[in-house]
């Protein structure tokens, strides 16, 4: 019998939360993750820029889609991940979950930024304006604000344990925004495209456009996960630095 089976569920969780195990596991995963994500992105870029046809309606601007849409998906994925990790952190007090949420925020914010900017760059030729105030665009902007607010809250609270819990509450409450973004196009009249890939009756998009889109989306997703691991490792080290510093202060106080 393996020793793990004799542990209670929470003990097993704790054991898995051990930073040393995480550090070892993630160290082994990182190299392959880098290879896969960069490889997918290179192939994806080739298909997106060269090996796919222009759209009969939108012309060459359709190529913006291959960056815009994956970024938009990852923006929402990032927030969902953050909210899920926060829930785990609040309910199970799993220390890695806090770090996961904290590390996901800047990555998600970067992709949200990318979705916003590429959307604006697409909007100018398509709609004639950089920005319009419709439900989809506004809710993505709010998503961006939520990311920034979340990071600001982490930065503003000195004590990490406190900051983690406060930020987790914010992430969870803000999670309401994700479905709003997803369905805003359905609920309100907007200029923006309704979903054409993830829908009940299957994708309505041409297959030669679906391939580069899928490649880029997968590539970005792997990239997201890779960076997430890197950042979580950095957070664990940061925690250790803090502990060492405080211990140094305590130790010299004892002398």
């Amino acid at each position, binding site marked *: 019998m393996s020793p793990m089976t004799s542990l209670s569920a929470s003990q097993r969780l704790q054991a898995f939360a051990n930073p040393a195990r995480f550090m070892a596991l993630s160290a082994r995963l990182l190299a392959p993750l880098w290879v896969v994500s960069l490889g997918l992105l290179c192939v994806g870029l080739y298909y997106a820029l060269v090996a796919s046809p222009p759209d009969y309606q939108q012309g060459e601007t359709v190529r913006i889609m291959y960056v815009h849409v994956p970024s938009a998906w990852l923006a929402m994925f990032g927030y969902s991940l953050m909210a899920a990790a926060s829930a785990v952190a609040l309910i199970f007090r799993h220390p890695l979950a806090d770090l996961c949420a904290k590390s996901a925020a800047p990555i998600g914010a970067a992709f949200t930024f990318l979705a916003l900017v590429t959307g604006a760059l697409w909007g100018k030729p398509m709609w004639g304006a950089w920005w319009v105030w419709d439900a989809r665009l506004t809710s993505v902007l709010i998503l961006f604000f939520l990311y920034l607010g979340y990071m600001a809250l982490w930065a503003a609270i*000195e*004590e*990490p*344990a406190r900051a983690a819990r406060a930020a987790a509450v914010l992430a969870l409450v803000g999670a309401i925004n994700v479905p709003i973004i997803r369905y805003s196009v359905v609920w309100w009249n907007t200029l923006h495209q309704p979903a054409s890939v993830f829908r009940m009756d299957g994708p309505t998009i041409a297959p030669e456009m679906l391939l580069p889109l899928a490649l880029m989306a997968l590539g970005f997703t792997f990239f997201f996960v890779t960076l997430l691991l890197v950042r979580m490792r950095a957070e664990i080290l940061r*925690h250790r630095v*803090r*502990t060492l510093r*405080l*211990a140094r*202060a*305590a130790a010299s*106080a*004892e002398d």
Partner: protein
Amino acid sequence: MTTSDLRLTASNLACVRGGRIVFEGLSFSVTAGAALVLTGPNGSGKSSLLRQIAGLLDIASGTLALDGGDPELTLAEQAHYLGHLDALKPAMTVVETLRFWAAWLGGDAAANAPAALESMGLAPLADLPVGYLSAGQKRRLALARFVATPRPIWLLDEPTVALDAASIERLGAVMRAHLAGGGIIVGATHLDLGLAGAQTLRLGAEAAA
């Protein structure tokens, strides 16, 4: 207080603040009618321990339990706490302040307020706004809360700060009456609290920062 079998027990208590262990492996037990005086150098964790008992600071490990109290209430709901801050609003008058806290903490505000003010020598100031009080007068008002609402556990963090000699006398009398009624007092101090025969717990003798 009918519960004379009250007992506050800490076992193997640890406190972590800002990522640093302030104390660990702390155990003590105080019974009804007894007082525990916490001493120790600055930064040894006296205030932190009191906040843990008051439910205002996480317990890193170990347990803290009250036996023989009201089983419906948590430890914090049966305790009075006086910290370094006085919890007073300058715009409210002395008597309004006392009435509010009595209502909040669960006493009969109207009935107890006059006696509580009297016990801390604040009766002549009853209708003054708190903003007009001197440091010691404020501290006395903060202490008057304890008298206005009966709660079995008193947690006092350096209660004598800013008090003049006469007020220290009054505080001593009030504390003795509380103990005689079967209450428990845990107090942190660098001076003498005037509680003869109290247990003393000296914190962090080694980490004298």
